[in-house]
């Protein structure tokens, strides 16, 4: 069985977010990047299938040279191979264009199961996974917190509101977008990291994948024109002073509420 995991490298959750010079995204120079948190759970879910049987796990990412680091981390965790789509034309592609690239990779790979994260920590869009499934004409489920695999299908639990879960069964091939907290994500071991150095990373361009005429920023149907710090509405009254002064004010507020 071939399992593909799509992963995105995103700015570190604690990275400084400064708007870039043309105001359309954040300044990405000199900030730390990491694997999107949702995707780490997707990698773990795939590796569990590998641990349980004969699955080959292929990790795929789109992005510039820095993305190699994220792929090496996933290989260090235990993935078998990596595909790195490294093409300037893919930079700034919209969700549908990005989905077309990933679908082309999945087709080449002949993936039986595709795991992704539910969304990315940077654009929070939750758009690409169902698109990839639609382009490949396979069923999909998003926000998945548990999977149970059998020969021909996968039973999944999808998170709904208020802690309720929806149980759905999908025949293979299918795509599953994993919610955070679905499992306990492993770390790359030292041995894993050493082994990862010998594992293959195939570098591809959009032309290699046959999507140069349909995907990439030149074909965008949705474009970010402006990024800005949200206008503050009725923002909080900020308490100032030393720790003691602040604490005194807080105790005063709680007293006023009649809760002390």
């Amino acid at each position, binding site marked *: 069985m071939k399992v593909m995991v799509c992963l995105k490298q995103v700015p570190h959750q604690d990275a400084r977010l400064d708007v870039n010079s043309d105001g359309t995204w954040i300044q990405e120079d000199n900030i730390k990047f990491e694997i999107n948190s949702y995707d780490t759970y997707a990698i773990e879910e795939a590796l569990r299938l590998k641990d349980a049987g004969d699955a080959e796990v292929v990790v795929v990412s789109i992005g510039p040279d820095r993305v190699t680091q994220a792929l090496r981390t996933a290989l260090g965790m235990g993935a078998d191979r990596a595909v790195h789509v490294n093409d300037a034309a893919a930079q700034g592609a*919209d969700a549908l264009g990005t989905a077309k690239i990933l679908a082309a990779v999945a087709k080449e790979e002949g993936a039986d199961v595709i795991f992704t994260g539910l969304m990315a920590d940077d*654009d929070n869009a939750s758009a690409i996974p169902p698109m990839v499934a*639609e382009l490949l004409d396979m069923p999909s489920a998003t926000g998945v917190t548990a999977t149970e695999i059998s020969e021909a299908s996968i039973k999944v639990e999808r998170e709904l*509101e208020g802690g309720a879960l*929806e149980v759905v069964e999908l025949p293979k091939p299918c795509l599953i977008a994993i919610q955070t907290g679905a499992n306990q994500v492993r770390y790359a071991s030292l041995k894993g990291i050493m082994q990862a150095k010998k594992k293959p990373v195939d570098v591809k361009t959009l032309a290699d994948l046959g999507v140069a005429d349909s995907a990439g920023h030149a074909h965008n149907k949705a474009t970010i024109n402006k990024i800005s*710090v949200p206008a503050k509405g009725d923002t*909080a009254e900020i308490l100032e002073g030393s720790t003691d002064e602040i604490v005194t004010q807080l105790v005063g*507020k709680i007293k006023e509420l009649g809760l002390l």
Partner: protein
Amino acid sequence: MGTILVVAEIQKGAIRESSYELVAVARELAESGGHDVNGLVIGSGVGDLATDFASKGAGKTLVVDDVSAANYNVDIWSKAIKAAAESTGADLILIANTPSGWDVAPRIAAGLDCAFVSDCFKIASLDGNGGNFVRRVFNGKLDAEVSTSGKTVATVQPGATAAFEGSSDGGTEALSTDLSARASFVEIKLAESTGVDLTKADIIVSGGRGVGSAEKFPEVIQPLADALGGAMGASRPVVDAGWLDHPYQVGSSGQIVTPKLYLAIGISGAIQHLVGMKASNFIVAINKDADAPIFEVANVGVVADLFDIVPALTNALKAAKG
């Protein structure tokens, strides 16, 4: 000019509030741009609900009424919405960003090979050649203005707009479409009751990722909750990391709470958390990052290291109580 298709969602036998919020968005755009508004209702035994939807703002409403659509199914919804989009020639298809909405909406855009915008809270304009949308990115820390070209599928953040309360003309019309599905619904599992019921607490002290580790909850957060006679809660990253169990989670996928006093400690304020606590009577936020979105819903904020403030506050409260 064009047509806006509004996809309704049924929950517990009624059309959801978020569907009428979509109607409000559609009606506002329709008024300024001269668009038509059409509805789509998918379900089983939903004729009356569809008639209601048609007369309460959605206008002419297409109905997929079949026993196979009794529960949400990604394949059926995907086919029905694509068929409705084609039959109405819609330029804009609106779907609420709920667990069903985000599951199906991107498939529609991919199937129609058109633009997609996710979880927007404002649609600034719509004309014959696309629209302008505003959404939050980076967990609520930044806004992004997105423009689309051509036909567009957009999901809208629930609660971003007030629900439509007017009326409209327009009957219902059955939409025939292929209802075969590969995905099969098995069951809904309701949340287990665990004894931690934050919805009844008058005071909740919640910790977030900024608390840093599992050990700090009994050391720092619980003592403050105890000093106030309140309950301890947490944001999603805390539960995801296994620091606390799911019953402590406040937010859209956890508990929705409205205590008299809510203290958010080391919580930046991702939308999914804010949804769960912003209706609290009084909110105090303590966070190192002055730009954290939590300060927008808080009544009182402290921009400082929680490990300085919280133990001192706990001691002061104990002293005040004597």
